[in-house]
């Protein structure tokens, strides 16, 4: 029982980590809490659903939905944030603009598609389950873990092993200096938006697979987890987001299993407030706080 809960928790946590990675990357490089991020998550899931209904297999639908969400992210970032970036507006302005944008997007999507919960066509992933001792792991869960591991590895490789990653990290460190060193910061910003959007979109598809419930507002309910993970992990800290995401998944499953399932959300929030009281730069934080 405990081992099974742990496995379920780690799998849930893997999707939280995947979702939060793009969020924290976006903050780390672009210095913006971009609230449209949850929308990419919904968009990815809905795109995959649409493709699956057209008869595409999950191997086609998952990557295409992720890329589609990435493209949406680039467009939204350009529409909402380029102007504010150019005039170097305070960060609360950027936060507010993405807040207005995301409300418009969610409500437009809901009035277009309706608020109902949709389900993926049966048989999109095989319903087989593997048994290791007493532990049961479904094929969907294996897919989730595999896809998450692959995407995280690809992200780390890109960030640590390529010139592009170096440019992005330089921009995160000091955008002005990076620009003086000949880095095209506009293009790098678009690229970061694209990568974040892809990660969110993939997260949406995988969470959609895990719970088999897809609806326009699913990204909004996910944002609370996103906030908790990026703050507990430290804003902009990729490794921290990974660990905090896994931890949150395990804690939520344990709370639901041993305390009360209704308290799942409350636990996430209690962790958030506790961390803000005690270690606001995150549990693994190198502090980069701008104190007033």
């Amino acid at each position, binding site marked *: 029982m405990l081992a099974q809960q742990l496995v379920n928790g780690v799998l849930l946590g893997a999707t939280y980590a995947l979702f939060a990675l793009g969020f924290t990357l976006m903050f780390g490089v672009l210095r913006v809490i971009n609230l449209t991020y949850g929308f990419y998550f919904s968009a990815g899931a809905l795109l995959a659903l649409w493709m699956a209904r057209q008869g595409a297999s999950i191997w086609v639908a998952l990557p295409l939905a992720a890329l589609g969400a990435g493209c949406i992210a680039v467009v939204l970032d350009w529409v909402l944030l380029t102007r504010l970036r150019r005039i170097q507006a305070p960060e609360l302005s950027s936060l507010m603009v993405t*807040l*207005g944008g995301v*409300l*418009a997007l969610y409500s437009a999507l809901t*009035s277009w598609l309706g608020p109902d919960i949709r389900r993926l066509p049966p048989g999109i992933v095989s319903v087989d389950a593997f048994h290791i001792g007493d532990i049961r792991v479904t094929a969907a869960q294996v897919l989730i873990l595999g896809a998450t591991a692959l995407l995280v590895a690809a992200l780390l490789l890109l960030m640590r092993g390529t010139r592009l990653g170096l440019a992005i990290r330089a921009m995160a460190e000091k955008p002005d200096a990076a620009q003086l060193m000949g880095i095209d910061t506009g293009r790098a910003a678009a690229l970061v938006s694209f990568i974040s959007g892809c990660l969110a979109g993939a997260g949406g598809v995988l969470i959609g697979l895990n719970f088999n419930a897809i609806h326009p507002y699913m990204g909004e309910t996910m944002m609370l987890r996103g*906030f908790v993970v990026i703050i507990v992990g430290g804003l902009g800290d990729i490794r921290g987001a990974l660990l905090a995401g896994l931890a949150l998944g395990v804690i939520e499953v344990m709370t639901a299993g041993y305390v009360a399932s209704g308290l799942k959300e409350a636990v996430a929030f209690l962790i958030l407030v506790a961390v*803000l009281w005690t270690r*606001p730069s995150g549990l693994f934080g190198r502090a980069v706080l701008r*104190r007033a």
Partner: protein
Amino acid sequence: MPAWLDDLLWTYQNLVYALGINGLLALSMYVVLAVGQLSLGQAAFMGLGAYSSALMTLKLGLPFAAVLPLSVVAPVAFALAVGGPTLRLAGVYLAIATIGLGEVLRAVYLNVDLFGGALGLSGIPERATAAMIYGLLGLAVLGLWLIGRSGIGRAMEAMREDETAAAVMGVPVRRYKMGALLASATLAGLAGCLSAHVSSFIGPNEYGFEPAVTILSYALLGGIGTPLAPVVGGWVLTLLPELLRGVSDIRLVLNGVIIVLAVLFLPNGLLALRMKRIGARTAA
């Protein structure tokens, strides 16, 4: 009261209530924006006021004269818990924590039996009157206007423009920020209590993400030049869907677009712009 006015009030009773309550909510947003902070907890504070006051009326049978002042206790307590750690940090932390607060409370209302789950609480007696709502709104506008003209008001403006500079000049920045958040929670809690006691029903989804952002759009449309501006912004956005039938479906899309346009192109709000122009003309 002449008969036609009585008729009019009767026909548009709900709208009259909504205008007053949304005015209070717009003010509760104004108070935090006025010190340069962004709290998205207004809807959550309103929900706390609504649920706690409804429970006091329904379960404890307290008279409304006690319920109304007591309805601010829960929102203020939550504002202290969330504001304590976040107001020391950069502004985004308060915004994030207050969005989180709204989401969590919605989950709690849905899952805890005391709050009636998805059905919410119904059968709340109609104890609030339009006179109470507009009396409180008037008092709040007057109070905030007087504060705005005092030394505190100038200190708040200085904080909004440049927090570090204000702190260097001796403005007790953290105390004012906390004071603003508590005032905001108080106003939103009162609005919640009044709305619960005019509508007889409250549900968990009335205080989530959408209302939180809608309240922000009131303040951004009006601008925060004077306390009256956000109230008028709230009135415009409450009346618009009533006047244009086709708009009511896409009301929230419109609110979102207004926020985007206001932040990108009209940082002082629609009304502030007009006032400045009129002022400029008379000066010239």
